[in-house]
């Protein structure tokens, strides 16, 4: 079943303390070549019928993202691309 994936990210100008905390932990793993980390959210939506990008955008704009602080993108993926099906 194809799904619509909504990716939500904090706007570039909004501080992401979570991402900073992760970036600050990387040297403890011996990783020293990462300049920054930003953390977002991926939401997969399965429609009862055909995937509807416009509807997904509406859902994202009203509920999944807060347009004051976040940007979002939507795209359709087939079953083998979804997170649940990855090996």
């Amino acid at each position, binding site marked *: 079943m194809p799904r619509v994936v909504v990716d939500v990210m904090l706007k570039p*100008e909004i*501080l992401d*303390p*979570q991402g900073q905390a992760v970036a600050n932990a990387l040297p403890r793993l011996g990783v020293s070549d990462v300049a920054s980390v930003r953390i977002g959210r991926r939401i997969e939506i399965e429609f009862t019928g055909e995937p509807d990008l416009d509807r997904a955008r509406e859902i994202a704009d009203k*509920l999944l993202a807060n347009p004051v602080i976040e940007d979002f993108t939507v795209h359709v993926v087939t079953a083998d691309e979804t997170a649940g099906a990855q090996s």
Partner: protein
Amino acid sequence: MTARVGVVTFPGSLDDGDAARAVRIAGAEVVRLWHGDPDLHGVDAVVLPGGFSYGDYLRCGAIARFAPVMETIVQAARGGLPVLGICNGFQILCEAHLLPGALTRNQHLHFRNRDQVLRIESTGTAWTNAFQPGQEVLVPVKNGEGCYVADPATLDRLEGEGRVVARYVGGNPNGSQRDIAAITNEAGNVVGIMPHPEHAVEALTGPSLDGLGFFTSVLKHLVGAPA
């Protein structure tokens, strides 16, 4: 006639009991409102309490905004109903677009829990008219996502229009822009505040009685307000 002040309970609200108590101590009749019931039962004002409504899933306040009771409150607030959102209630008011900006994760990522001095910057609102301009008050602050953010134009407008209601003094507990602890809408009937005035209404449990002023303010406002 005694004013009737509604206190909403969402699944996950924590401070609805203390908010109701503060309303009662201030001298009003408390009306408990339920998130699933769109009827406001004729209340004269509403308090949205602190807590973790709907588990704070997705974003704080994001799901509460669509609760049946909120649809009525949003409409009534646009018509002038005094609404005070405390902590999670402030987050809900921002998500509902009754107030501009958003509350984000504390800059240092730590949950902050302490007694906090605030300076009352605006006494023109329904919830702060009992204070003196510039008055400093001591109330508890306790939040994980209390960092107020908005774009610079919005912040300038809030400052220019006297809509910053309170600022943190003696240290900013969460990284809020311009030390903002509380803001109001254009009409001054809707106020969102991150610290907890409802926890500072009795000597036994609070660091002061300063919080009571927010609740006595709305009673003063209602007496003066046209019926």
